[in-house]
């Protein structure tokens, strides 16, 4: 027996919604697009203006200061390798994209995570949305992002933020919920207001977990660079896409290696295990 299911025109609805969004919020989207593009250009300018070795030393120094001299040494070797395969410019453009996408994702994710930790209702609403954002094939975001923000670095960045945000929210919620309830109770018992308890007690004690979330956000952002490259974000992702189109295994490997080096640097810089 066949049970007929009518064709649900979900796709059509999405198109209609998208058209409506463009018609009514077009100006707003232009503002966002310009803002993100300016931010990206600014950071890229900062990274590209000095000689490559100055940036390498600064990033290595940051690694030394936050973690260890081993990380600093690894950074220098890795970045020399990037320059050696002629990917410095692309790597800096990818670094800019990932940095800005991560910052935006974290700025949105941490307040959402706090909200989820404070209220069970918010947590229940957030959970399926996070599932959706993280498991929907990320290329699907690219299409509306392309329509709204046009070709360039911005649609890739927006798709990256959406895809990479979820662990930031989850780890923040987990971290705050995981703070010893008696310690929070002590704050309340001495008459501290909720905002102060959050700032003085919950956030500092949840910080290791939140940082693990930020680390995950960065890693997911990096995994998005190739997809962002498909819509003209350039950088290492653009290079990988180009090598795929030209079936150029050598170029593909060189740009892929540069992604790996960036990923390792950012991971070691932000992961909690590395802290002595």
């Amino acid at each position: 027996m066949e049970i007929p299911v009518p064709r649900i025109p979900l796709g059509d609805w999405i198109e209609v919604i998208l058209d409506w969004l463009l018609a009514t919020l077009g100006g707003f989207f232009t503002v966002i697009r310009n803002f993100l593009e300016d931010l990206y250009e600014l950071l890229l300018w900062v990274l590209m203006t000095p000689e490559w070795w100055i940036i390498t030393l600064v990033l290595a120094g940051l690694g030394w200061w936050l973690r260890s001299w081993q990380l600093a040494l690894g950074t220098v070797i890795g970045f020399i390798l990037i320059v050696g395969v002629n990917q410095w410019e692309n790597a800096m453009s990818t670094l800019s994209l990932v940095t800005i996408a991560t910052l935006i994702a974290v700025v949105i994710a941490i307040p959402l995570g706090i909200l989820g930790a404070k209220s069970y209702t918010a947590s229940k609403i957030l959970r399926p949305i996070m599932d959706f954002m993280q498991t929907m094939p990320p290329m699907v975001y690219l299409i509306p992002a392309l329509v709204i923000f046009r070709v360039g670095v911005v649609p890739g960045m927006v798709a990256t933020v959406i895809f990479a945000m979820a662990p930031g929210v989850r780890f923040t919620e987990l971290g705050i919920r995981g703070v010893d309830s008696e310690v929070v109770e002590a704050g309340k018992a001495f008459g501290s207001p909720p905002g102060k308890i959050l700032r003085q007690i919950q956030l500092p004690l949840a910080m290791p977990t939140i940082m693990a979330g930020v680390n995950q956000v960065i890693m997911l952002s990096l995994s998005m660079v190739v997809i962002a490259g498909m819509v003209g974000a350039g950088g290492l992702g653009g290079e990988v896409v180009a090598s795929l189109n030209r079936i150029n295994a050598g170029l593909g490997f060189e740009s892929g290696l540069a992604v790996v080096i960036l990923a390792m640097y950012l991971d070691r810089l932000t992961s909690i295990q590395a802290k002595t």
Partner: protein
Amino acid sequence: MYKGREEELTRELLAVGQSTMSEPNTGQPVVRVENVYKIFGRRPKAVAEKMQAGATRKDVENQGTAAVIDATFDVYPGEIFVVMGLSGSGKSTLIRTLNALQPATTGTVEVRGQDLAKLSPKELRALRSEHISMVFQHFALFPHWTNIENAAYSLETQGVAKQERYEKAREVLAAVGLKGWEDSYPSELSGGMRQRVGLARALAADTDVMLMDEAFSALDPLIRREMQEELKQIQDRLGRTIIFITHDLNEAMFLGDRIAVMKDGEIAQIGTPEQILSEPADDYVASFTSDVDRARVLTAESVMVPENELTEEDRASFARKSLSVKSDATIQQIVPVVLEAQGPVAVDSATGSDRVGYIRLATLLEALTPQESTVVDGAKAAN
């Protein structure tokens, strides 16, 4: 039938306990608790109403958990009021209704005449920071702060300027024996020392009421003993009103001016340690008292005899040595004196030099063995 009679008896004994306690506590109560219920569940108010109408804890089991049932008591200035009960008896919930960390479902909780249920969140916070401090079972120190920052926390919530609160915190840390540990972190301290920081945090706040939730339960027995004695000394010096929660009756007897014994969310008896020992309200309370260290609880007053009960031999023996003890001395303190006297010793009133009675070795030994009270006998007969 039997149960009803027992309840009646309990109520009578409670009434006796309260009336005999009225003499040292002439002031207004600092904390007033009246018919307080605390129910956990979907519709706590409805459950509380059912229980007020006579439903038992078991009747409402599947609608909610009744953690505190019809609690009524007053705590007077300068008193150590101990709430004693086994785990699950509702004592921790009861203490949390006193600063509204767990607001009472129904009933009145008043601190310094202010009804907690009628306060706005802001007023409630002000009341907590100015007038009620708390010491926690697992210390609840802030691990990312130094000890002095922890001790100064209560002052910070009161809005005291930084320099002043550090000065005060330094003093209080020194007073609890942690001089030199100001800039260490709690993780560098032993359990006993951590609780000293917890105590310092509460003491620094200078509040009239101090809530202590199983404050010494997580400590080793020796350290616990030490902390109990220190708390008593601190109390003698500062005269705070302390509400102390414990599951250890020995601790309750040693610290408490009055003790409330809780069972299954209800207060089974309120009385002085001596009343709880000598007139347990029911066999539940009596079963606790059987392993109490009586020497630490009973005082000279409760074991002395009037002069006319002394024998000729006693009088002759007393005339040789003529030693005396204060009426509030515990048996532990009296025994060495009696041993030295090799005969009766005199009991003087705690304040003046009035002679109020005498202690004989025989009465002393009698007091140390638990009496088979009528209640316990009754319970045995019923079984």
